[in-house]
């Protein structure tokens, strides 16, 4: 159910809360994605690009 916001502060508290969860998920996601991307790439010089 869509929450009703009576003040700007309520709106921001709700949206920022979701954003914080998303950013933490994204940071974990980036680590997993990097692992997937570079997983098979055993560059002898240790260079990623």
């Amino acid at each position: 159910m869509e929450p009703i916001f009576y003040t700007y502060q309520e709106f921001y508290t709700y949206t920022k809360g979701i954003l914080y969860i998303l950013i933490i998920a994204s940071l974990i996601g980036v680590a997993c994605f990097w692992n997937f991307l570079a997983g098979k790439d055993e560059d002898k010089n240790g260079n990623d690009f």
Partner: protein
Amino acid sequence: MSDNAIVQPRTWFTPFNVITGTIICIGIVISILRFTTGLGSVTHLTDDNPWGVWIGFDLLVGVALAAGGYVTSSAVYLFGMKKYHSAVRPAVLTGFLGYALVVFALHYDVGRPWRLPYPFIMQQGTTSLLFEVAGCVALYLTVLFLEFVPAALEWLGFKRVRQLIIKLTLLLTVFGVVLSTLHQSSLGALFLISPSKLHPLWYSTYLPVYFFISSIIAGLSMVIFESTLSHRYFGHKMDKTHLDENEGVTLGFGKAASLVLFGYFIIKVMGIAGANNWHLLGTPYGYWFLVELIGFIAFPCFFFATGVRNKDIKLIKWTSAWSVLGIVLNRLNVSLIAFNWQLPLDRKYIPHWMEISLSIFIVTVGIVVFRFIVTRMPIFYEHPEYKDTH
């Protein structure tokens, strides 16, 4: 060759020349019509929709896809990734032609070509984003010209001038990156003034950031896409270095593109979260937004990553074309499809066939000029007199 062999005379009427020649003839006719009878005779532009395909596709898509120049130059000259060096000249040429054609296309929209320098000499609109875009594009076109001109000077044999200009490479690259961050983001910022006209799923105060990040994706993808086509049609012009480095360029740029796409996907999702627009995803425009987000951002990201991981060059090349389409779709969505989304159908903008024909004409001119340059100038090979000097 046998004495009895019949030598076929070279003909101008090759399929490529016939098709491009026809398109160019049609484009010239439409150009004459536009400048003699006005916008109304060749476009469906109205007061509701003053910007159409010529801005949405020719300008916004053109500038985004020409971003390969600054991306490749900065990778090689600023980040020291010398293994991509062979990709610099083709990328700079693509960028130079892209920006030149953007300025060419702009003339059709503004209508009085002699007034193009007016923002610099008559009245500076210092509160206008478009003034900043105009300034940056003009300067960056100059930068790209100076980055490209050593190849032309090598072809013409002007050694001293070439030596002088090649010393400016690092300065031009830095300047190019600064200018590109400015104008790529500012093109997105143009839409900040119309929050009620642009659909909330595409509208965001982060539009400048979205446009800049997606320009990096466009540049990386376009370098892979252009090198794929160049290898197919101009492979005989390429030297050993270029051919040897091609796989590395494809893998490296594919890896970078997949990372940037991942970041772009995250910030787009955060844009929805920040504005609390989740409920809009269930609407028709929401489904179209998901087509762009999942189909043209998430999927290319995944397939680039898979291709890099498995060293599948073919997959990366196909994904680059897909990613380029995604950038085209994004720019068209922001400028045309999701713009004025609330208008009834009879007031919505549908391009005139002449507008589309002219855009095709401009792209064709670009391809013809690209072909002229790469078949004559040292773009895909190093000139024997200037090996390892750039």
